């Protein structure tokens, strides 16, 4: 097993708020040094509360955790010296410039005075903000703010980096640029990254391992490939030209595996075993003279894993959380 002594270890971590609301209900975590660990779940699942506890901003109600080898309750200052964090909202002062933020952050992190300017310039350049460094942050785009936020989290060369939904609200180009920088930090600088996200693609592309969290508990954990493998075979979704033929299509598809949730007007089957492929399905439909409007092969996704473990899709869970918040 990978060495987690300098990464993150958590056992039975719980956070209960006033009124008995349990945001985190006993989390176990083992994140190895140098790993990119993704915490995937809908809004309100407990991701940010977990990050706040691990970064020492919020004491846990029960359980214990170490970050970089330090206890989050008993050794808070040592934990903070070892970590960098970019929390959910880009925490910036709109009337200060990027360079002024960098100057303040290097000073408060007690970076050696002679190195502060060089360190600030290096990070601004790394995140592509040198040209905008003397502009007030209120003129920055969302992507620029996120990149500055990331740069500020790195001024004291932390060994661990916490990123709480770092790409939420970003356009695809900004998102991709941030992913590249995070991947580079882990690969070249050996930084351990703990990342929360509600984007399946982000977890899939970026993370070495993923923990899926729902209602304060980790419901599945592993590499993206391993998690998807637990779901098994791909599904084939077929929409017949004549919707009245759906029962006949279902009869045909059921020869190849178990029927599963399909698109509207469609019928879907999860292919059983390795003996069947898409071509077999097409041949069988053709032999029965069934015409189709649409036919699609779906590889298992992390959303399928979430569905299998919780009975809901990530989007559905998001909707439920919103409804709970409104009510």
């Amino acid at each position, binding site marked *: 097993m990978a060495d987690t002594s300098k990464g993150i270890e958590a056992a039975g971590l719980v956070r209960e708020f006033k009124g008995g609301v349990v945001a985190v209900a006993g989390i176990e975590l083992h994140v190895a040094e140098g790993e990119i660990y993704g915490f995937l779940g809908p809004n309100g699942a407990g991701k940010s509360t977990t990050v706040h506890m691990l970064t*020492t901003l919020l004491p846990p109600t029960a359980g214990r955790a170490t970050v970089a080898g330090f206890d989050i309750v008993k050794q808070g200052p040592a934990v903070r010296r070892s970590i960098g964090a970019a*929390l959910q909202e880009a925490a910036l002062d709109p009337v200060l410039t990027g360079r002024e933020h960098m100057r303040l952050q290097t000073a408060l992190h007690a970076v050696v005075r002679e190195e502060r300017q060089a360190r600030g310039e290096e990070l601004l350049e790394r995140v592509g903000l040198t040209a905008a460094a003397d502009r007030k942050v209120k003129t920055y785009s969302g992507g620029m703010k996120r990149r500055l936020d990331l740069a500020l989290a790195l001024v004291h060369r932390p060994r661990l980096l916490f990123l709480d939904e770092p790409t939420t609200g970003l356009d695809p180009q900004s998102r991709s640029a941030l992913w590249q920088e995070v991947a580079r930090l882990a690969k070249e600088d050996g930084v351990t990254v703990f990342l929360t996200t509600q984007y399946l693609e982000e977890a899939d592309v970026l993370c070495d391992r993923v923990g899926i969290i729902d209602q304060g508990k980790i419901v599945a954990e592993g590499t993206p490939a391993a998690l998807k493998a637990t779901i098994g075979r791909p599904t084939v979704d077929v929409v017949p030209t004549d919707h009245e033929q759906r029962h006949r299509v279902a009869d045909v598809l059921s020869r190849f595996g178990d029927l599963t949730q399909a698109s509207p007007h469609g019928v879907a089957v999860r292919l059983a075993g390795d003996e069947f492929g898409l071509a077999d399905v097409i041949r069988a439909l053709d032999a029965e003279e069934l015409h189709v409007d649409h036919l699609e092969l779906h590889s298992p996704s992390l959303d399928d894993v979430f569905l299998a473990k919780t009975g809901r899709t990530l989007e559905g869970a998001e909707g439920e959380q919103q409804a709970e918040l409104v009510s």
Partner: protein
Amino acid sequence: MSTTLSTTLGQIGDLARRSITRTLRQPSYVIPPLIFPTLLVAVNAAGLRPSTALEGFPTNSFLAFAIAVPFIQGALFSTMNAGTDLARDIQTGFLNRLALTPMRGSALLVGHMAGVMTLGLIQSLFYICFALAVGVRFEAGVGGAFVILALATTIAAAFGMLGAFLALRTGSGESIQATFPFLFVFLFISSMNTPRNLIAVHWFKVAATINPVSYLIEGVRSLVIVGWDETALLRAFAVALTIGAISIVLASHALGQRMART
């Protein structure tokens, strides 16, 4: 100097620079405290000039009598400005960013006051220039003007710390703004327009006497219309320092609860 003290002073300096920069870059913080108090004193001076004919009124210039009010009114703006700034730091998560650094809580509070005190100083200089421009003479002379600057800056810091407490307690800029009219009530039930000994309505006289704002106004006023009145000055500084001390204790406690880092 010990390393801890040196580190804390360095942090205060860094946060003070940020506080001053951010204050001076927000015209909405700088301009209203200059315009509104001087407008109010001009209107009051025009309307209440006959008050000077009352027997026992301490001066024959109502403007000289009332010019102390802008200094206190300007300081009340400090409550709102300091509180709103800190509340914004809480709402945007900037306080969490600071909490993740080795910054001490005391450095945050003291550094945060730097912007308030700078603005307090600028306001006071402006009011002094305004007073001189409209013909008010300072009986305590140039030295008295410097004491006014010191007193007004102390009052601004005291009220600023009160604003910081409210921000840390509520975490909401809207709540801070809602307290502003409440603070103005203290100004209006003070001796701002009439010397306490000439207030005829009993309840109002009692209210003005127990209202600490009266003593702040009277301290500044004494330097303008009397000269060197040690009693009035001591009372004013004592009230300002007491408000400041109570606010620091409350703000420190609220900061400890707000920044519940382990």
